[in-house]
Structures are given as structure tokens and as C-alpha cells.
């Protein structure tokens, strides 16, 4: 397996680095060592806008997903019996493996101006609310992508929280809500941070939601890459974009893990 992964996984990624220095002449790819791609990309305003937008989108998706997932994960971990727990996990694992693409498409059924939600809103008299081709649409798509995973990861860390710590906190006059913030969340910190990290990584690299539910007019980095590759055939430029993405994600990952694992007191 090592061989396979080396050849088909490590090498392609390393190759990306080399590729970023190549150039395209006359629609043909030529090996070279030139910084043209880097200067083009890093100097391009649309790149930085897309970069900032990716950050904004992913950060908000991470916050929203983590907050929305938490009551669900908490409920499954603390308020469901053994069998109900297993069943809930069983259900959550399923969408994880089903086609994200088709699910995003199906959301159009709900979100378009003529779709189900708006039809219901019409009935109630609220009128049409534009949901597709907006950030809201993109967000729904991101949630479809990440919510099962975030709930599962949060659940696995919450379920191992030492219950006697919760009782000890209650015993020391800590009320219900406060105990959740003072004891449960700090105890499960590592898992919660890792769940958020995965959410960030997934959304940062996703082009489907912003394209099909967000309208695609406002580009994020992944959209930029698909455009550059598919229509522009500018593989080296796409490579530079991809590498900045990787660098960003690595930095975020390191920071997150350092934060998750720090201990209080020496």
C-alpha cells in the first residue's frame, strides 16, 4: 500500500508544486522554472477577493455548522438510550456516503423561487423569499455536506465525557446550561475542534455549493480552480491556487490542533 500511495498520492501532490512553476505556451504545457504563475495569481485582485471570500464562507459555515450540530450531538450523547443512540448514528452515517452532488441538486427543489419552501410561504402569505443564488443557498449546501460529519465527530467526543464531572459541577452549584459551557465543552474540546477543522477543510475545498446554490457569480477559490483548469487550461495557474489553498489549510490545521491540545497549568 505504501508504494501505491507514494506513487499515486504523494507524487501527484508534490508534482503540483513543480507544476506551479511551469508555463503554458501555445496551448501546450512546458516544464520550466519561472515565477510567472505565482506573480500573476498573487497579484491578481480577483484571486485575493476569492481567497477572502473562501475564508469568509468557510469560517461562517464552520461556526454555523458547529453551533447547529452541537444540540443534536449533545442530545444523542446525553439524552438518548443505548439503542436509540446506535440507531441515530446508523442514520447519520448513511448520508455521509451518498452523493453530495445529487443532494445539492435536490435542495434546488426546495429553495428555488418556484420551489417547495416558497410554495408553502405563499400559502402562509409571506410571499417569495429568494434563497437560491444567495449566500444562504451556499450555506445550506455547505451544511448538507458537513452536518452529518460534524454531528458524528462532536458526538464521539461528547459521549466520552466523564459523567461524574458533570455531576460534580451540579454538586458545586453549577446550573444546567452553565455546566454545559464550563464542563462539557472543555472536556470535549479536542473532538469539537477537530469537527470544526474538518468542516472548514471540506467547505474551503468545495465548489459545488457556491456554484449551484450560490449562483457561482461570486467565486470562491475552488470555483477559480475549476474555471482555470477546465475552461482556461491554465494548469500551472490552477496549481498555484491549489498550493495556496493547501498552505492555508495546513496553517489552520496546525493552529487548530495546537489550540485543541493545550493544557492549563504547568
Amino acid at each position, binding site marked *: 500500500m505504501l508504494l501505491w500511495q507514494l506513487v499515486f498520492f504523494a507524487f501527484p501532490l508534490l508534482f503540483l508544486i513543480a507544476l506551479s512553476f511551469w508555463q503554458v505556451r501555445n496551448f501546450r504545457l512546458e516544464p520550466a522554472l519561472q515565477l510567472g504563475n505565482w506573480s500573476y495569481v498573487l497579484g491578481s485582485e480577483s484571486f485575493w477577493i476569492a481567497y477572502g471570500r473562501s475564508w469568509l464562507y468557510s469560517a461562517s459555515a464552520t461556526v454555523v455548522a458547529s453551533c447547529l450540530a452541537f444540540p443534536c450531538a449533545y442530545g444523542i450523547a446525553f439524552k438518548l438510550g443505548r439503542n436509540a443512540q446506535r440507531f441515530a448514528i446508523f442514520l447519520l452515517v448513511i448520508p455521509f456516503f451518498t452523493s453530495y452532488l445529487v443532494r445539492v441538486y435536490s435542495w434546488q427543489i426546495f429553495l428555488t423561487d418556484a420551489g417547495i419552501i416558497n410554495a408553502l410561504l405563499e400559502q402562509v402569505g409571506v410571499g417569495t423569499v429568494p434563497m437560491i443564488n444567495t449566500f444562504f443557498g451556499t450555506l445550506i449546501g455547505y451544511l448538507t455536506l458537513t452536518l452529518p460529519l460534524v454531528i458524528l465527530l462532536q458526538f464521539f467526543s461528547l459521549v466520552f465525557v466523564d459523567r461524574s464531572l458533570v*455531576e460534580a459541577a451540579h454538586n458545586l452549584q453549577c446550573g444546567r446550561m452553565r455546566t454545559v459551557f464550563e464542563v462539557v465543552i472543555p472536556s470535549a474540546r479536542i473532538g469539537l475542534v477537530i469537527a470544526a477543522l474538518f468542516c472548514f477543510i471540506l467547505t474551503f475545498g468545495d465548489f459545488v455549493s457556491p456554484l449551484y446554490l450560490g449562483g457561482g457569480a461570486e467565486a470562491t477559490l475552488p470555483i477559480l480552480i475549476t474555471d482555470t483548469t477546465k475552461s482556461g487550461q491554465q494548469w500551472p495557474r490552477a496549481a498555484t491556487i491549489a498550493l495556496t489553498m493547501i498552505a492555508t489549510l495546513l496553517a489552520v490545521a496546525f493552529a487548530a490542533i495546537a489550540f485543541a491540545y493545550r493544557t492549563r497549568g504547568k
Partner: protein
Amino acid sequence: MQSTPLVEIDKVVKRFGYHTAVHSTTFDIVGGEFLAIMGSSGCGKTTMLRMLAGLEAPTEGEIRIEGLRSNELPPWQRDTPMVWQSLALFPFLTVVENVEFGLRMRKVAPAERRKRALSWIDRMDLAEFAGRNIAQLSGGQRQRVALARSLVTEPKVLLLDEPLSALDTNLRVRMQSVLTKLQKELGITFVYVTHSQSEAFSMADRVVIMSRGRIEQIGTPVEIYSTPRNRFVAEFLGSANVFEGKIESIQGALMSVHSPILRAKVPVNPLRAFGIGDIVSFVVPEDRLRILPKHDSTAENCLPAKVIGEEFVGANMRLYVEAESQQEVRLLTSHGARSGSVDVPNRVALTWNPGDAYVLPD
């Protein structure tokens, strides 16, 4: 000690589904006393403690703390800090942050609570560890942090759930004296749950013995040891021998009790008046039995037996003899008593003074 009870447990029952963990129980806890609740696992002692802390609610009956009904009171509105068997120290907080937790919940000002926490940490000889993470402390040190955390809020009652069971013997003995001294100094009530008879008896003012959800006996250690109420308690204490027989006659302060193998005279127990024909159990403590080389079937308080083992107990020796019907009886005697006067194959007779026996009231 105050005369009005601090905690009243009134006909409390606790059921979990179809299982009754605590049958109707009633007793009081007095302010300032060290009360131990003792029994083997499953007897309901921990359930009782948890009901006092508010972690479980009684299914029936009422618990009153300082005269007020507390059944519906959630744990965070009570002042009954607990020392947990697993200690339950917060691993993500330092020692001093752990200790001041209760004060923080009561909204004591930061400077004030830090001061009080540190003074307790100092009192527990842990001053140099105040800023450390609890993972770096030894078992005994963590014990003391758990104690400080519960006591810093100056409660009237402290609940302890087998806090010493995870410590090794040396440490356990030392901590026992720490706890007893502390309780006397502070004058607050300790409710201490344990399965160890020696712990309960050496530390407590009063002991509650529980078995299968019921209280078998409450009393001071001396009372329980010298006058066990029933067979369970007597056997639980370990070093008592229980015999049974039917009352044939009562002559004043003595009763004649007969069984197929034994004729005995036992003192009447003022706690319970038995009648002729009742079956009673009586106890002869192990240090009151004597060995005779031969059995005299005409004598009273004389039982044939066979020596089956012996054991050194300090300056004395414990003999294990088997009486009729395979009942194992234990004797504590000095070393000299046995040598030479016993014939092969170790058949002997047990005897005792009538006044040394004790009839079990239940």
C-alpha cells in the same frame, strides 16, 4: 452537637424501574456528627447518598434538610458538596481553579475566592501545587484537592462516597485520621459511605448498616459491635458465632434454649421479650469461647466440635472448629490454650459462660 436533626430521611423509597434500591427508610442525621453508611455493594448506600445530594430523587417519602423538604431541589441549589470515589476533579482546570469552582458558582468576587481557595490549599499542604494541572499530582494529593474543593464553601454537610477505596493501605490509614481530625475541627456533619467495616467503625460517631436496600442497624460502633440486632449484622461483623435453638423455659434472667445438638442457657435480652417455643438466635463472641478436651453431653453450653484450622492473630491465635451440621465457629484464644490437651483426631468441645452469650433481638 445540635439536638435538632440536620437531615431527616422520612420513609424514603427509591425504585429504578422494577428494582427497589432502597426500601422504606427512616432515620435522622444530626448536625456535627460523623455518620458512616456501610454495607456491601448493591445495598443502597450510594443511592442514599446521591439522594441527599439531589442527584437522584426519592420515589416515595421525603428528605428534609434543615427542616425544608428537598425532594424537588436540583443539585445545584443544594449545599451538599460531595467527595467522589473517582474524585471527579476537572482535568482542564488547575488545582486552585478546581478548588475555587464552588465559590465561583456562588459569585464570590475573584480576589476573595482566590484568597479562600489558596488558604484551603495551604491547609491541605498543597501550596506549591496551586498553579499545577491536576494530572501532575499523586493520588493522595488529588484526594486533598477534592476535599478542599468541597470544603471551601463552608457547607454544613459533606458527603463522601468511598473516597479512600482507590488508595493503597498506608495512605488510606493516614487519610482516615486526616478526615476524622478535620471533621472534629470543623464541627460539620460528614456522611461517609463505605463498604469497609474497619473504616466505618474507626472513624464514625454513628454507623448505619445497610443491606439490600434496608437498614439493618443504626448505632455507635460500640453499640453495634457489642449488641448486634440481627443475624445479618452479627455475621457481617465477622467475628461472631451465631447459634439457634428453641426456647424451652424462661427462668428469670436466663432462658433455656434447646436444639438437637445443644442445650444452652442464654441471658434474656431486654430489647425483645421472647416467649416459650420461639426460635431464637444467639451470639457467642469469639473471645468468649473456650476449648475443652472432651465433650460432655450432659453439660449445658457445651458443643462438640472438630478443629479444622488455626491462624496467628498477633499475640493470640484464632482456631477454626467445625461444629455439628458443618457450622464453622471461630475462637480467639491465647497460644497456650491448645497445646497438649487435645486428642487425636482433634475432637474437642466448645464451652462458654452463659452470661457471655447474647440473644439477637431480630
